[in-house]
Structure formats: structure tokens, C-alpha cells
């Protein structure tokens, strides 16, 4: 995070998308500079995943699973478009994903980044926390920026969400437009990654 913020120090106005909720510390941290902070509360949109009606039973028709999957992917895209409904000319310099990757399955994560992709610039940076293994202790948290090198972490309000631990490579393959610039395994087992555009 310090490196990310350092690299964005001269950007004005700084366009930030935080996938969580705005918390005191983050607003305070950016409060001294020209910026637009958008807090989209993404996890609210994950509380009830889109579903499709089950295929008709015993109709004798062949069920094409790929069609079903494509419909579900489209449903996710629509869901995220409603959350990230920015004008076409909106571009962000910084994405604070926090641990939101971990509450989306592969399909949802793919859809999310497809919807996000039109809003990234050449030098957009991102920050995320990837859950590598199943561990309830690292879920249901809310994050903020206390200082350039310090995050603040609180218990969250989305304990009912399912988490999807995955290896870094698999997550990275779903982040359309981004590549992992650097990562470090934290003490709590989360992999903290900085992202850059590809």
C-alpha cells in the first residue's frame, strides 16, 4: 500500500473506487487532497447471488450446460453493472478491493472485472487481499486506510457470505486488465497484492 499511494501522490484529482464502505479513516486519509472517493459497498450485492430457473425436468430436451453458465455469467454482469453504473468517461486511478475477491466465485469475479474493465486507465493501480486457504478468521472484515503504511481492520457485517479461497494464479487469471505487481503473505494467511494494469 505505501508504494501504491506514493505512486499516486501527484495525481489530482485522484479517483478512487473502494469496493467496501467508507469508513472514518479512509475518508480522513484522503481528505487533504483533491479526490473523488466512491464507496460501492460491493458485498451488499453479493448477499443474494443471481439464480436462474432450473432447467425443465424430464422434457426430453438436451440441457446445454454452457448456455446455462453463460446466462448466469450475464446475470452477474447485470448485477455488477447496477453497482458500478458509472458514466463511460469515468476512470479510476486506484481500486481498493480489500478482500472482496474472496466472496466471489470464479464466475462472479470474472464478471466483476469485465464490468470494471472500461473504467481502468493505463496507470491504474489496485490493492487486494487474497484468501489462499479456508480460514474463517480472515473473513468478514472491513478495511480502511489509517496511514500510508497502515490499514485499519474491523469486524464486518457480512458474516453470512461464503468465501472462496483460491491460489494467487487462479485469482490473477480472473482479474481482467490487471496483473499482480507484487504480493506478500501476511501473518494472518492472506496474500496482500498490489495490482497494475496489463
Amino acid at each position: 500500500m505505501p508504494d501504491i499511494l506514493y505512486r499516486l501522490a501527484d495525481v489530482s484529482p485522484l479517483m478512487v473506487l473502494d469496493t467496501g464502505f467508507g469508513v472514518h479513516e479512509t475518508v480522513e486519509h484522503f481528505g487533504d487532497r483533491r479526490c473523488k472517493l466512491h464507496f460501492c459497498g460491493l458485498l451488499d450485492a453479493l448477499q443474494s447471488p443471481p439464480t436462474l430457473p432450473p432447467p425443465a425436468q424430464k422434457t426430453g430436451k438436451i440441457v446445454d450446460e454452457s448456455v446455462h453458465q453463460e446466462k448466469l455469467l450475464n446475470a452477474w454482469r447485470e448485477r455488477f453493472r447496477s453497482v458500478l453504473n458509472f458514466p463511460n468517461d469515468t476512470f479510476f486511478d486506484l481500486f481498493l478491493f480489500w478482500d472482496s475477491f474472496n466472496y466471489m466465485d470464479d464466475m462472479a469475479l470474472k464478471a466483476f472485472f469485465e464490468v470494471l474493465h472500461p473504467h481502468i486507465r493505463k496507470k491504474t493501480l489496485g490493492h487486494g487481499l487474497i484468501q489462499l486457504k479456508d480460514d474463517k478468521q480472515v473473513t468478514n472484515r472491513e478495511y480502511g486506510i489509517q496511514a500510508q503504511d497502515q490499514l485499519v481492520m474491523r469486524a464486518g457485517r457480512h458474516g453470512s457470505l461464503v468465501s472462496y479461497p483460491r491460489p494467487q494464479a487462479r485469482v490473477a487469471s480472473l482479474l481482467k486488465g490487471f496483473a499482480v505487481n507484487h504480493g506478500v503473505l501476511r501473518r494472518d494467511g492472506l496474500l496482500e497484492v498490489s495490482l497494475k494494469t496489463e
Partner: protein
Amino acid sequence: MFDRNKDKQQDKPETSAAPAVESGYSSSPRPAAGTSSGTSATLGATIKVKGDISGDENLLIEGQVEGTVNLASHELTVGKSGKVHANVNAKVIRIDGEVHGDITGKEKVFVSSTSNIKGNVVTPKMTLEEGARFKGTIDIDPGHANGGSPATPLKSGNTADRQGNTTSKPGNTNEKTS
């Protein structure tokens, strides 16, 4: 960056329901910071107004307003029982209650943990009370205090939806980041 040993956790003292806020604010409903602008008016809890409100004094809204509120040179407080479904524009704005509309504070905006906001905020200085959670856009321009016309916030399809943090916090953790 990404120092493996930096992520030492430190317990942060729990914050109370009435956290430290900027000087000039208290948790009790009253006109926003400072009363240097002179007299204040109160729109009581049983009062409902449909239309535009403007004036040259501070205003505390505890009732319901639909329309617009424009106190360009004065201070607006939306009290805990206040329900304002309007775009609001004032020099200083404190929100303890409900505002559905865009909020332009020419000097500052203070959002408390009891508030409920759907709209975007444009101001040179924004303070979100500890315990508050905010969903929406905040457009901050510290160089334009006392600025003129309201800036255009980043528009989003989903309007802001702020929810006060009324549950107890099990404790915050400050964490060095890599």
C-alpha cells in the same frame, strides 16, 4: 513495501458510540459547527415542508422536508429525527438524520454514525464519524473552501446509501501494510 514483518497487529482502543469529532461539533442535535453567522432557526419534529427552503440564518431540521434546502452562507443541521428528501446546499452541514439527495457543503460536511444518506457529497472537507459507514461518492476539493457553485459529483447508478454503525464494534485493528 510488502515487508513480511510489517503486518503486526495492534489493538486499537475501542471507540465509544460518541467518538471524538471535530471541535465545534457535539453529538446532540444542534446547528452545525460554530454559530458565528448569527441567529438559528429550528424546524421542529412535527413540521413537514414541501418546497424550497432558503435563508440567511442557521437551520436545524428535526422535521421533514421535500424540495431543496439552500443556506449558502449558513449552517445546516439535520437532526436525528430530521428527514430531508432534497438536495441540500449550505456552508457547513452536519447530518445526524436522514438525507436523500445530493449534499453540497461549501466549507465542510460532517456525517455522524446515526445518519442515513442516499446521495453524493461534494465538499472541501468531509468528516465521517467513527462508526459510520458510507456508501456513495464523496467529492473532496480542499482548495475550494468557500467555493461558488456546487461541483458535480461522480455520478453513479446506485445512489449513496449510508448506514450508521449502530452495532458495537468488537475492536479495531491497526495493521501495517505491505
